Structures are given as C-alpha cells and as structure tokens.
C-alpha cells in the first residue's frame, strides 16, 4: 500500500468531484487523512496509475460521471523525437530502458512536486525500491541527443542540487541518495562492479537508478521533458512508460515516442501504448454479482471505469486503456463493472440448501482440556509463539540445539527469532510479571510447539501447567499430571528424569512407547531467579500430536 498526498483543491479541480470521500471509496481506495488543505490517500498496489493526480482525477471523474474521459484516445506523435542507444555494459546489471518525451507540459504550482512524488512512489513500490524499476525526469531542452545508456567502471556527475562534480564511487559512499539506494545496483556493503549511467553528447545526465545530473534539472517553468524508465523487467519498464504517457496526454501535453536501439538487437519504440480488447458474456456478469444487469447499463458502468465499450447480442466488448497495467483478463473488467454498479446496490441473498457445521477434533480436545484445567483452579494464558534463545533455553537451563529450532531468517524485532519448542518458559514469564498478585497463582496454556524432527517440520499441541505458592511441591504437580493422563486416556510410565529446568531428583518424565512425551517437577531455583520469581513453582508439560490434521 502506498500513500500519496495532494492539495485537496488540486484534486477537486483535476477530477471535477466535490465529494472526494465517497468517490475515493467508490473506486476502492481510502482517505488516510485530510487536514489543513491536504488529502492523503492509500492506493492499493495493483493500481500504480492512481498514484498520479491526473490518473486519480481521471478515475474519480469517470466513476462519478463528473468528467468522463474516454479510454480510447491515447495516441502519440508518429515520428520518434530522439534515440537512446543501449550498450552491452548494462546487460547483466540493468538491461532495459524506455523513454517518453512530453512537450508543452504544465509543471506550475504543485504539478512538479506531484510528478516527482508519483515517479518516486512507483520506483519504491512497483519498482521495489528502484531495484526492478526506476524513473528519471529531465529537461528535454538541455539534452543534446542522442542518449547513451550503458554501464561504466567509473564516471563523474554533478548530482542534482549540487554544483560540484563527484565521482560515481563517491556518490555511492557519500551522497545520501547513493547510500539510500545502494542495494539497487550492488550487494549490501559491496562496491558495484559497474555503474549504469545515461549520457548525452556532452555529459552524464544520470547515474542510474541513484541520481540525476544537475545539468538536466527540471523546474516549475520547464515545458518539455524527457522521462526515462530503467530496470530489470522489460514488461515493467514498458508498462510504466505507457502509464506516464497517458498521464502526460491527459495533462494536455503532446507526447513523442523515443527510439531505443539495443546493441545487437532490433530497435523498439516506446511508449508502446497497446490497447487490449476483451469480450464478456453478460450472463457471466450476472452470475458474478448474483443479479441481472441490463446490457446498456453494463456499457455505462464500463465507461465509468475508463473502458470504451460496445454491446453486441449477449456480450459486451471492452477496450482496455494502456494505463491499466494490472489488467489480465475479463475477471478484472467484471470487478470494475461491479465497482461502478456499487456494492451498496447489491441485495444480500442466502445460499440455497442446508448444511451442518462440524467442529474440528483438535479444537474440541483443546476446549475439553481447558475445562479440565480450569476445574482444577488453573487460569488460562495465551502466549506468543515467537521467542528467542535466551528465554527458551538459557533462562531455562536447557540445551539449545540449533538444528532442531525453527528459526526466522530475518526479524525486525531482534528478540523474536525462533518459534517456541516448549510452553513452560512463557508461563514462567507470565508469573514473573505478576509477582504483586495474590498467591497461589496457577496458570495453564494449551498451544502449539514447533521443532524439526527427523528432518521434518513438527507442529505439535502442548499443554503446560504451573503452580506458584509457598507450599508448591512435587506431589502436587504429580497429582495433576496423573489426573491429566487419565483424562487423556494415555497409558504412560512415570520415570525419573533430568532436565536443567527442574531440581535434580525432583523431576520426572512421562514416557509412552519409549518416547518422552512430557516432563514435570519442581522448578530449579536458578530458573526461578531468571524469571524473577521468589516463591516455589511446580510445573509440567505434556505434548501430543495435533488431532485430525
């Protein structure tokens, strides 16, 4: 989800829509905040075209019928206005480029800011922080064509906003943008082997995808611009060029195509601006919605979401405008038609037929065990499954076997890097933060525990009990365990056992068919101290497979 901000009055003017709240809701987006004359809108990732004030204004104008813009009018000038020669150097780093030239564009007021925000958001989200796709905007009149897109071992550029020339290497290590987007062209912490860059006949105009040159900087009074889109996905750079071209045309500019000649390949011309056509049976729409919609109405709803549409017999044919980079097939068109029809106009209808809802065995067992524990005076806890080595093993005086632990590759929270293999540490922690409460404190939890067992992931259900009070002793916990085994109808032996978490000689294992399925005893005083507990605690835990999964 990306958030984009405009002056409210600009969006009202662009769209012709006064009631922005309901129109924005109607196209499935959301106002995040609206204050002090500014409106921020959350845009879902499938619609990069709406990150732009022109694109968003177009969608809002269409859906409300305030300012209908037909989808079939995006045509560029015939002759390419300039050329980009692509060298072999970029092949392994960032092979593709597209470019668009717009003449007579209006960047006054907030327009320039909006265009920069738009391209930055695209590069951040759709372009995966510039790695997959990045966009650069240049003053076309300051470019001495043709352009060359290639990669070099070193070079120099006057970074946008500066006046001194800098070496590429220095930009990467010292300039804020160089550091921010370093990962887009090199491994973290490594120097790039080669730098993708764009130059014209005289100078470097961009160190791609890091920063542009001050020499082609765009200002509010710039009228003619060249926009280049570079990246690792040929489909992606083509789509973004289309999307930008549509936006410029809707903004009143004239758009010229650019020749892209890859060394050793045929020329291509961008933007492509291809229209797609889809034909939908009207009955398919009725079925999706669950009620009948008239054919003429369908054409109207298609227009309201930017398609040109025509009806013939029992089907409608839609022309899909080039800015719809998300469009795959007729389902996407039906979605738009339902959107225009309005969910508020669809009456809920029950499903015919009778069915019986059946609970899952695992949940039934869990509920039954919870009732058992509560009857014994235990109160239930629900703890997080993510934990760390310290809580899970060190504090428990248990050995950490990293081969058995389910570990996360990367966690934003340092203290959460593995899944628990036992419930007990969580419960001891719960007692630890409750020391001011009246004793006895008795807690239980029934939840999942995780490990790697015989090379396979194992998710088991585990039940743990803890009891803290001045007279807690081995026989108390043994009493609970015996009763629990009886309840579970588990035939098991109770044997002396060693577990660092318990006092030696006051710890036992529950053994079934030769396998230890549970352990209980008096918690070791060092463990108690680790969890800041000052009274005796007895504890037990039994694991069993998940029922019926």
């Amino acid at each position: 989800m990306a958030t984009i901000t405009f002056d409210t009055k600009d969006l009202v003017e662009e769209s012709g829509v006064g009631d922005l709240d309901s129109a924005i809701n109607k196209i499935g987006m959301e106002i995040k905040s609206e204050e002090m004359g500014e409106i921020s809108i959350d845009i879902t990732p499938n619609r990069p075209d709406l990150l732009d004030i022109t694109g968003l204004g177009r969608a809002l104008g269409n859906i409300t019928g305030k300012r209908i813009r037909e989808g079939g009018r995006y045509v560029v000038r015939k002759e390419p206005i300039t050329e980009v020669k692509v060298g072999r150097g970029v092949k392994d780093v960032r092979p593709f480029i597209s470019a668009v030239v717009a003449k007579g564009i209006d960047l006054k007021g907030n327009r320039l800011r909006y265009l920069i925000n738009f391209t930055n958001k695209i590069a951040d989200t759709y372009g995966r922080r510039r790695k997959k796709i990045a966009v650069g905007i240049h003053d076309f009149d300051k470019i001495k064509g043709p352009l060359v897109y290639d990669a070099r071992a070193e070079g120099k550029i006057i970074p946008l906003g500066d006046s001194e020339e800098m070496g590429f290497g220095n930009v990467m290590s010292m300039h804020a943008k160089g550091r921010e987007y370093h990962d887009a062209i090199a491994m973290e912490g490594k120097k790039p082997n080669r730098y993708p860059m764009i130059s014209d006949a005289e100078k470097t105009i961009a160190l791609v995808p890091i920063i542009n040159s001050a020499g082609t900087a765009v200002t509010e009074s710039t009228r003619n611009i060249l926009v280049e889109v570079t990246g690792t996905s040929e489909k992606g750079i083509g789509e973004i060029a289309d999307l930008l071209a549509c936006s410029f045309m809707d903004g009143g500019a004239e758009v010229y195509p650019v020749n892209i000649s890859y060394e050793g390949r045929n020329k291509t011309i961008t933007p492509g601006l291809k229209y797609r056509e889809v034909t939908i049976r009207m009955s398919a729409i009725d079925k999706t919605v669950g009620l009948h919609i008239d054919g003429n109405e369908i054409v109207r709803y298609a227009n309201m979401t930017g398609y040109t549409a025509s009806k013939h017999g029992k089907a409608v044919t839609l022309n899909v405008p080039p800015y719809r980079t998300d469009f795959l097939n007729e389902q996407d068109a039906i979605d738009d038609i339902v959107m225009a029809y309005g969910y508020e106009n669809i009456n809920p209808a029950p499903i015919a037929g009778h069915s019986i809802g059946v609970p899952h065995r695992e949940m039934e067992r869990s509920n039954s065990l919870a009732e058992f524990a509560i009857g014994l005076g235990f109160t239930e806890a629900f703890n997080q499954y993510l934990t760390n080595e310290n809580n899970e093993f060190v504090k428990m005086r248990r050995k950490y076997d990293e081969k058995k632990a389910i570990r996360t590759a990367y966690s934003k929270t340092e203290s959460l890097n593995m899944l628990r293999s036992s419930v007990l540490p969580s419960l001891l922690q719960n007692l630890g933060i409750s020391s001011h409460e009246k004793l006895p404190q008795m807690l239980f939890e029934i939840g999942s525990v995780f490990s790697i067992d015989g090379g396979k992931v194992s998710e088991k259900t585990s039940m743990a009990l803890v009891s803290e009070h001045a007279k807690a002793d081995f026989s108390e916990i043994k009493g609970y365990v015996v009763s629990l085994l009886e309840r579970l109808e588990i035939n098991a032996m109770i044997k002396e056992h060693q577990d660092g978490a318990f006092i030696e000689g006051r710890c036992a294992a529950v053994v079934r068919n030769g396998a230890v399925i549970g352990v209980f005893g008096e918690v070791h005083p060092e463990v108690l101290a680790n969890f800041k507990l000052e009274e005796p605690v007895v504890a037990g835990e039994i694991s069993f497979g998940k029922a019926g999964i």
Partner: protein
Amino acid sequence: MHEYERKLLSVLSGAASGNIESIAKATSMERDQIMWAAESLAALGAVNVSKSRTEEATLTEEGRRYLGEFPEERVIKEMGGKSAILDKLDNIGLLWAKKNGWIAINDKSAHATEEGKRAASGKEYMPRTVLNLLDKKGDAAGSDPDIIETLVKRKLVRIKEHTIITRIEITAAGRKMLANDGSGGGGIGQLTREIITGGGWRNSGFRKYDVSSPAEARYPSRMHPMREFTNKMRQVWFNMGFTETLGPMIEPAFWSFDALFSPQDHPTREMQDTFFLSNPETIDVEDMALFRRVKAMHVKGGGREWREEVAKQALLRVHTTSVSARSIYKHAKEDEGNFPMKLFSIGRTFRNESIDYKHLAEFHQSDGIVIGNRLGISNLLYILKSFYREMGLDVEGKGKLKIKPSYFPFVEPGLEVNYFDENRGEWIELCGGGIIRKEITKALGTNKTVLAWGMSVERLMFDTLGIETLMELYRNEVGWLRKRKPIER
C-alpha cells in the same frame, strides 16, 4: 471471637501497637485478614485504628514512553526554535506545543514563540519532572495538582485513592476481650467441628460480626479471553452451517502466496512483511502436478517470471487464507462432496513487524470459503452480514455497514466490509473478501466458484474487554486474567 481477631489481639497484647507489616510478620496472617480483623475489632472498641488516605499514582504504557521526552518537547526541539512545515511534525506534539504557547500556527507552518525557544533550549518541563517523580515515588502527594490533573487527562497517569491502616493499637476493652476469650464472653466466633457436633452453640450465642468491614474479593480461574471469543465465533459459524478446518502455521511460500496468485516479484508479497525461515529454509510441495499447474498460472496466466525455489521458501503463514487454499485443493478431488461446501478456519498468523506497545508480530485471523456452483457477490454479502449480526454488531441500522471495493491478489471482484463504531466514532475494517480468481480454482483442481473472505479476530474484542492493544491481551498478567471483563455480558 474469630480466629483472625484472636490472633490480632494476642500479638497486640504483647506489643501494644503495630503496623500491618509487623503484625503480618508476627502472625503470618495476610494483609486483608489483618485489615478485616482490625475493622471488626475497632467496631467493638477493642482496638484503635489510625488510617491515612493516599493517592497511588501509576504510569500508563503511554506515560512510560513519555519519561524521556514529551512529544511537544520533541516537536519544539525538532523545530530548533525556528519554523517547520506542519505535516512533518507529530500531531499530538503539535497540539500540546500550541496549548503551551510554544508555537504559533499560520499557513502550513509552525513558528516557535519566545516561550517555545526557551523550551527548545532545554528549559525544565514541569509535566515531565512530575511524571518522573511519580514514576519513582508512586505517590502524587506534594506535586502541583494542576499538572497531575493534566497528566491524568492525557492518560499518562492513573490515580487510585487508597485508605490504608497505618497503626493498630489495643484498648483496655480489647485486652479484656482477649482475657475473656474462650470463656464465651463475646459468644461464638469461628464455628468449629467441636461446636457443631457437640452442640455447644445451643447455650452460647454467636458473636455478631461487622458485616461492613472489608473483605478481599475472590476471583475464579478462567479461560483466556481469546478462547472465550473464538468459541463464540465458532458457534456462530456452526449455526450458519460452516465446518471447521485447521492448517499448518509453517508453510512453503507456495500455500501462502503462489497458490493465491500473488506474484513472486510484486509489492503485495513484500506488503505482507513476511517471516521467512532460515531453518528450515525450504519446504517441498508434494503434489508435483499441482506445483506445475500453479507455475503455469503465473507464467502463462499472468505473464510473470516464476521460480520454483521462491515457491518453496519456508515461512510463517501471513494469513489463514492458506488454509482456505488447502481446503479448495483437498475438496477439488472429491466429485461428490456436499456442495455448496461451507468451511471456516480460525488460527494464528505472523507478520514481521517491529513490535512496540501497540504492535505484535502475531495475531489471529479467521477465513471462510463456500465452494459451489451458483454463487455470487450477493451470497457473500449475506454470509458476512449474518455473521456480524450474530456476533452482536448492529449491522441493520442505516449507515452502519459500508461495503466498498478493495484489492487482494487472489480475488476478483474484491471487497471490504467496514463498520461504524459508535464508541470510537470511526469506521473500522471488519473483513475483506470476494470471489477467488478462476486461475486459482483451476490450478487447485476445481471448476467450481469459491467465495472467500478473511477477517482479523482480536480487534473485535478490544471494546468488549476495554483494552486497546494486542500487548495487553497477550501479556497474561495474572491479575488481569483473573479480573478482566467477560466477553459475554
């Protein structure tokens, strides 16, 4: 005489007077037992009790975060005594900086006043000084009551009034009572087996207790609210004819993403902030034919690049929709199931978030599907509306529910249900849903239509429990577990 009263008088007869701590030590009685006995004896004139009233101050979670710096201090410091654009500044900080007269606002900028400049240069900020004092002492006495009132209003501090007994002193009457105890002077205190079986009570009456003296409330052992609430949800689904399903939490990316048409290289995948695993690094998908069909869905159906290794990456599921995907696959094989088939699932999901007082990396979700032939959006709306009505939300009132289009990679059309929460005065998102894309159902092996939806669980309980964050729900502080509000009223 009651056992507690006797114990108290005995210890006092030796020491003449004492505070609760010393008495507790000498008698091994609990605090509340001593207090009960003292009040009861005081009513009889056997002891004199001195009391004092205190105000105990505790910091809220938010208050604790303010100990180092208040947001208004941060704002004024960030401004560095100059001006700044409003939308770059923290809202709460702005509000209070303005109230303090530190800034003036015009146009879209904030300007530091003289007072503000003094604050920015590190002048002592009294609310923070008082807050720190309260944190250390836990006692509000002696601090500026206006500042305390403001801190309470800002929900940084909670004040509880306590009456505590500071001293208990035995009187002459008390000594006499103790001397007479056992000879039946005051009537029967604690009823005993001997008195009951021996019938001794027939001759001597019962001493009256002071029924107004305090007794500590006793709390039951209980289930966790999460169980209480999920059981309520489950019951509603059963009543609506839905059968319960469960699935694994550790999955290959395949079930969380690929089978649901989420592109391997697309913001949606990162949007989820997934916990990928380093042990195990990959998990295989056993049905190779299924694996190939899903690959074709992405490559041919979506025109995308798709790599097998990426689909095998092990992760912690980001939603319970993976359980729905598994169910569609499982039941696609059955030609003669009981269709339309209605299924739901409630389970734990994981998001790789930076955790703080408000956000946790784990929470619960509930997903549901209906697999059948003639199913449309109107049916989906009926199910969702019925469910929330049965859960006790007022969904029938005008303007209570808002259904709007939304985007999820696996449904088309996709929608979102919002509910107007009267208490908060704002819309909250209840769930998202739609019709599963045909590419997906086909790859999973069925030609049937599948309605699907997913919802967050905890959020629905917050108001009922009077809490605002997930952290409160999963801290498991024993006092809260014992005394929390019930889900059902």
